[in-house]
């Protein structure tokens, strides 16, 4: 039976892949608050399901496989799906930003861009938006939950969310405003950024995220992989304490690779009320 289930999932994936090739998509450009234009991919604008916005992880783009394939899946499930790429200070950024690049962006700018995209999607679809964030994308969504009213959201689903790990320079943080220093953040061992920008990410920790999720006016669900090494041992307990719907895919890693990808889709679809 297990073999049959895997076969069915593979067959489903193949069908989705074929359908994705014919699915319509458009690139949307919005000028952000800093004046820097950013782009997003909008799939299945005519979908009848709840509009979904999927936000990518740390320094990534909407083309990150986990994000792209999930967007395609949901578009195929008749959801209008918007996948923005945070500008991170780069006009129309299309590439993942290297750790060693200069990082002048901060979490607030990211949340601001997220808000702009939520507004755009809400206005476009005239429906509350389901926010899905992968990894650090969940950090911006939880901060968005804390800052913005829930009227434009229907549900929040956070995939592989984990508290950020940051480290200040050994020689001490720079004191001058706008002065760059090599911090360490998330998986970046060398992360040139300013003190303010660093702390905007580093200081939005587990407590802040758990509080945001606990206080959220919309349902918050968290999908984690059973084998995600980035998850701290007590993170599941904290999530459960926050009252979120916690779904764990056994054996899946941080990016839900391989067959775990479909289990992720199953869970997302379940959370969105679909049949899959």
């Amino acid at each position, binding site marked *: 039976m297990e073999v049959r289930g895997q076969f069915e999932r593979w067959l489903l994936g193949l069908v989705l892949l074929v359908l994705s090739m014919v699915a319509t998509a458009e690139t949307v450009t919005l000028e952000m608050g800093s004046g820097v234009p950013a782009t997003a991919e909008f799939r299945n604008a005519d979908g009848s399901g709840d509009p979904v916005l999927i936000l990518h992880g740390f320094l990534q783009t909407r083309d990150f496989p986990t994000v792209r394939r999930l967007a395609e899946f949901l578009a195929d499930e008749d959801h209008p799906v918007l996948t923005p790429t945070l500008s991170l*200070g780069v006009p129309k950024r299309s590439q993942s930003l*290297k750790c060693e690049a200069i990082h002048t962006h901060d979490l607030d700018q990211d949340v601001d861009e997220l808000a702009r995209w939520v507004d755009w999607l809400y206005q476009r679809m005239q429906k509350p938006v389901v926010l899905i964030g992968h990894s650090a994308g969940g950090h911006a969504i939880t901060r968005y939950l804390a800052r913005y009213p829930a009227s434009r959201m229907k549900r929040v689903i956070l995939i592989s969310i984990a508290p950020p790990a940051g480290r200040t320079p050994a020689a001490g943080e720079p004191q001058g405003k706008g002065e760059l220093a090599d911090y360490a953040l998330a998986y970046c061992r060398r992360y040139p950024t300013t003190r303010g920008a660093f702390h905007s990410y580093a200081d939005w920790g587990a407590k802040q995220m758990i509080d945001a999720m606990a206080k959220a006016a919309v349902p918050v669900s968290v999908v984690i992989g059973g084998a995600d090494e980035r998850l701290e041992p007590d993170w599941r307990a904290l999530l459960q304490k926050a009252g979120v719907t916690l779904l764990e895919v056994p054996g899946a890693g941080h990016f839900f690779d391989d067959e775990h990808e479909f289990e992720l889709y199953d869970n997302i679809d379940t959370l969105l009320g679909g049949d899959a």
Partner: protein
Amino acid sequence: MARFSLSYRRYAAWLTALVVFVYGLFGWLVYQQYSEAKQAFEQSEREAAQRELDVLLQRALDALERRADELAQWDELYQQLANPVYFTYWYAHRIKGGHEVPPPFEALMLYDVAGRALGKETASPLPRTLAEREPTMIFNPAGSDVQVFLVRPLRRAGEETPQGFLMLSARLLPNVKRGQAFVRVDPTSLRFSLDGSTREPETLRRALTYQPRRSDSVREGDRLVRRMLFFIGLLVLLPTLGLVYFFIYLIGRNIQHMPEVVSALRQAQQSGSSVVLPSPPSGPRIRELEEAEHSLLEYQRELTLANRQLDKKNRELWSLAHLDALTGAQNRRAFENFWETLQSLGERERRSLRLMLCDVNHFKAINDTYGHDVGDGVLKAIVACLQKAVRRGEQLFRLGGDEFVSVLLDCDDSQATAVASRCAAEVARYPFRETLGIQEPVRLSIGISPATSDARTPLNRLLRQADVAMYHSKRPSSGTITLYRESLEQASGSIFSSSVNEAVYRAVETGEGLHLLYQPVRMLADNRIGYYEALLRVRHEDGLLTPAQIMPVIESRHLEKELDQAVIDALLRALYNGVIPPETGLSLNLSAASISSESIVSRLDAFRPFLPGLKIVVEVTETALITRMKEASSNLMRLRNQGFRIALDDFGSGYSSLRYLTSMPVDVVKFDISLISALDQPAHYRLVTHLVEFIGSSGHQTVAEGVEDEQTLERVREAGFSLVQGYLTGRPQALRPRGPGQLIVRPA
């Protein structure tokens, strides 16, 4: 013409040189062909290398442009354009120290939309301002390399206006070489020689120099051809040299054996011993040379046998050459050899000697009369007599005919005369009548000449002196033996002088100098001229030669028939010229040889037209013994039948007067002058008278010769002769030709 000849070693050396030359020529031709093909191939390779280099250069330029286009979409560039606050930091960490610039490029610079470089100070070698606004590629010379500058407007997809500009620079050669497969071009040889800045790739292409990579196939071809020529050379030269050495060894050993064989044969030939052949060389032998050796041995045997036979024949030949087969005496050649030996000995010791020459009086007449067998018997008897008479050790030689000579050594005139006397005596005592039937006495005439045994006395002169002396002995008034002295030379000079000989020969051969006198023969009854006797003379610088001077020359050379022929021709001319008066006649003397000769007798036919008017008398001298009596009689009979008269001349002075008279058709008998001159003797007169009566009664006319006075003429008349001839009745005279117009007698 000398034939070309070389030793076999030299031939082998030439053969080897020829092989080496031919192979060298072959190798050179092959290598020439290969070189031409290689040059064509290398030309093709150069063209291919140029094409390859063009492709590689274009590929490098395309790669640079492609990389520039890719880099122009790098987000961080747009990040810096949007917020150039941290450009210096970014440039220092991300560009210079961050290794973010793609490897082909060495420098990078960002410019704002106005073309101003971002940041205030950077270490970039690129210019601070940019005039270009379109994608551009500029090439600047940089030593042997080219610095490529690429300009790209930085704009996102769908944007019209660029957000800024990017300039990149790179060294071209490393990019041409990097990651490209050079097949025909040596990448280390690439050099640019660009004169100035350009944007034209074609100019760039022309400025790129290179060396084609030496093709492996060419190198391999070179190696293969050289190796092929080397191994073929070995295959040709080594066997050739081996064969040449083998043949030198084989042929040389066998050929060198041949001289040893020949040497052994020569040694055996010289020593007369049997042939001891050297042992043949070891190892293989050559059949042809073995056969040649066998042939040589066989030839040697045959040669030895032939030599022996030749020796025998030589001995026989020597005998034949040096001994007279008839008499057993040594011959003239032996005499000449003996004389040479004597002269060579005389060079050491001069010896006085005498040359004794003798012959048999009237031997030819004896021979003709009694036949050759008797003549041969006479010669054998003479030799026996002479050998008995000469002293011990003195040799007798037969020079030819009836002439014999002996060299009397250590001898003076008296001793020589004594030897000669013994010789004459021995011959005189020999019983020729009893043994050979010869009625007439056989006598010798001997001449002796003094000499010395040195080379200063030529043999011919000695023989001539002895000959002169011997001929002197033949004179009626001389003795049997005559010692040579110079006075004899003068006496006989006319006979033997070369001028006399020449005059006689010329007269015989051409008729030039031949002179005829005519002596009338008168009829005693009425003193009319019965006929003229033609008498022969020969003109000579000293006057006319008489028969006494002419005939010894003729007889010594046996020119009797030739002389008669000349006389006949002269007489015919005289007859045609009307020399002979009509109603007379002409008599001519013929030798014994001519009478027996058919050609001479036939020649007399030319006289026949004159016979009706003239009396033509053919005189045959009784003293000349006729050898071929049968033919002579037949010819005379033939002439007589044709109308000729036959006269027997000198009747009574010879051997067989009556025999001739009875056996030959004679019309006229001319009594010898010795009979006429003796008519004053009564006994002789009676005998002659009876003879004239007897002969006349036989129907013959008789002629008395030598009548020079009236008394003799009277006696002749009384004796009953019918015709008379002599100075009294008519001297020999020349008759003037009367010319053809005055000819009374003409040929019928």
